[in-house]
């Protein structure tokens, strides 16, 4: 009986797949037609043969971006480890799965529509929205230093989109339905992130206004952090997080070694995130910029961890690892917007302040009775805003524009995502049942436990 059902489902799927395979060439041709239309104009200049120097500079810059993209993609492993480690073992499969699907859905949708919305081309300069067409060109454009092959550019950008999406999975951990998460993830990477991304990096209105965000303290991290806040608010805290008198209970993560490994991986991945955002290595000005960016990134991360450790030590009388790890990430987020505009010494200060902000942010969330299991909001939301402001304070960019951008982008992410989570909640309910939450989402949502054979005693 059961077997019959499965066989039936199998054949059905196969039939659908066959149909897809049959029609796909047509669809794909359509995609390419549109795409080629868009790319027509610039392709013309391709006629003249590039010089050896152009070819070499082109190779150097694209190779640089390629390896940077790989580093940024590696961050997905870092997020997965950080978030899995900071949550209960009974939700491990769920968290890992959300991280994997972020990337997979992100790649699919950002390829299909997101990239075209985020980089719509000069026609939409200074605007609020644009679209360059489906897919990503596979054609070679101009060959010269500083010019990027669209495929490499896409690879780099899609990793950023996946990063923004994956930040949220930690904030909503332990209680959000898996299917709701997949919908959220699709909307963020396919719509919300590309739109606000276009405002700055696609040449939109924030860019025209003079707002500066080098590698995405706001465009990427604050978007993720505030989307996570929205999710945490709509969901409410996990069972047992807050007592009736409002005091919080610790719900410690099940594997801090995973969390530490994840932070080291993220730190490493950030060497793609920030330096890669220079988008060029050739030319001594670029080379020099990348060098300063890399060192600033390192110093801010180090001081973020150090600052958080020290501040926590002063406040609570002990150095806490999970806080220092959050501090390192906050330092990295804080320097992201301005790593090319500040000195090593200023990076030092930006890092320490970011580390302190994260400790205060955790206190603030506890006060407000908001449950963000991994500290995604303090790390990416608050330190992201700090990054935007610091760009004005230290980095010779107009403070006014920085403040506008540092308010508008978080607000955009928060409001749209609040509406999304709220609407989904009204329609089908986004929170798992109390029983499922208690038993763990691994059993409830996936029927698969992460640690078969290990005896685990969970008391929360």
């Amino acid at each position: 009986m059961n077997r019959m059902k499965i066989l039936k489902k199998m054949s059905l799927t196969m039939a659908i797949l066959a149909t897809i395979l049959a029609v796909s060439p047509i669809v794909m041709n359509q995609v390419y037609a549109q795409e080629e239309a868009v790319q027509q104009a610039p392709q013309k200049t391709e006629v003249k043969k590039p010089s050896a120097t152009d070819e070499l500079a082109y190779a150097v810059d694209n190779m640089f971006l390629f390896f940077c993209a790989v580093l940024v993609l590696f961050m997905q492993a870092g997020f997965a480890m950080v978030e899995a480690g900071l949550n209960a073992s009974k939700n491990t499969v769920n968290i890992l799965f959300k991280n994997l699907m972020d990337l997979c859905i992100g790649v699919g949708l950002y390829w299909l529509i997101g990239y075209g919305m985020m980089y719509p081309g000069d026609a939409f300069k200074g605007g609020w929205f644009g679209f360059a067409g489906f897919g990503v060109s596979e054609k070679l454009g101009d060959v010269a230093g500083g010019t990027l092959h669209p495929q490499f550019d896409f690879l780099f950008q899609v990793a950023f989109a996946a990063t923004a999406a994956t930040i949220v999975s930690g904030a909503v951990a332990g209680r959000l339905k898996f299917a709701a998460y997949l919908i959220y993830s699709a909307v963020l990477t396919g719509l919300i992130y590309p739109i606000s991304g276009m405002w700055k990096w696609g040449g939109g209105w924030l860019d025209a206004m003079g707002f500066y965000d080098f590698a995405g303290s706001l465009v990427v991290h604050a978007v993720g952090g505030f989307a996570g806040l929205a999710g945490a608010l709509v969901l409410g805290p996990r069972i047992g997080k807050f007592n009736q008198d409002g005091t919080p209970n610790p719900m410690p993560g099940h594997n801090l070694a995973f969390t530490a490994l994840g932070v080291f991986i993220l730190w490493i991945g950030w060497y793609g995130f920030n330096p890669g955002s220079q988008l060029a290595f050739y030319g001594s000005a670029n080379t020099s910029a990348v060098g300063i960016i890399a060192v600033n990134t390192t110093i801010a991360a180090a001081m973020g961890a150090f600052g958080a450790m020290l501040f926590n030590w002063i406040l609570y009388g002990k150095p806490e690892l999970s806080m220092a790890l959050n501090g390192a990430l906050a330092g990295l987020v804080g320097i992201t917007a301005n790593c090319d505009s500040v000195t090593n010494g200023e990076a030092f200060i930006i890092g320490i302040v970011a580390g302190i902000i994260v400790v205060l942010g955790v206190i603030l969330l506890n006060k407000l009775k908001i449950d963000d299991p991994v500290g995604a909001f303090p790390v990416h939301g608050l330190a992201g805003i700090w990054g935007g402001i610091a760009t004005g304070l230290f980095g010779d960019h107009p403070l006014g524009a920085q403040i506008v951008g540092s308010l508008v982008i978080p607000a955009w992410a928060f409001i749209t995502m609040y509406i999304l989570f709220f609407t989904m909640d009204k329609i089908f309910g986004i929170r798992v049942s109390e029983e499922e939450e208690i038993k763990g989402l691994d059993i409830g949502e996936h029927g698969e436990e992460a640690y078969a054979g290990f005896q685990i005693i969970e008391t929360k």
Partner: protein
Amino acid sequence: MKLITALIQPHKLPDVKKALFDAKVYKMTVTSALGAGAQKGYTETYRGAQEEINLLKKIKIEIAVNDDFVQPTVDAIIKGAKTGNIGDGKIFIQPLEECIRIRTGEKGKAAIG
């Protein structure tokens, strides 16, 4: 003296602990266990293979008490653990002949509390 053993739902441990503390029972030993009882397990398919998981995670609490403490202790456990649903658990009471405090060598009533 009696040895009271309770098998409860894992997430009820904080409530039971609180009820026991309110009843002035401060000493106990807790272990994790897997239990099969009236509560139905769940079926998993894993990579195409099916299995009924009928051993569910439980917490086992053992408390050694003097005879006059048996009823209050049982009551406290029930107060903390009861939800009215299947899976709430069981309490077993066994005779306990002797109790010795390792630190002092005290025995019986003096040692148990």
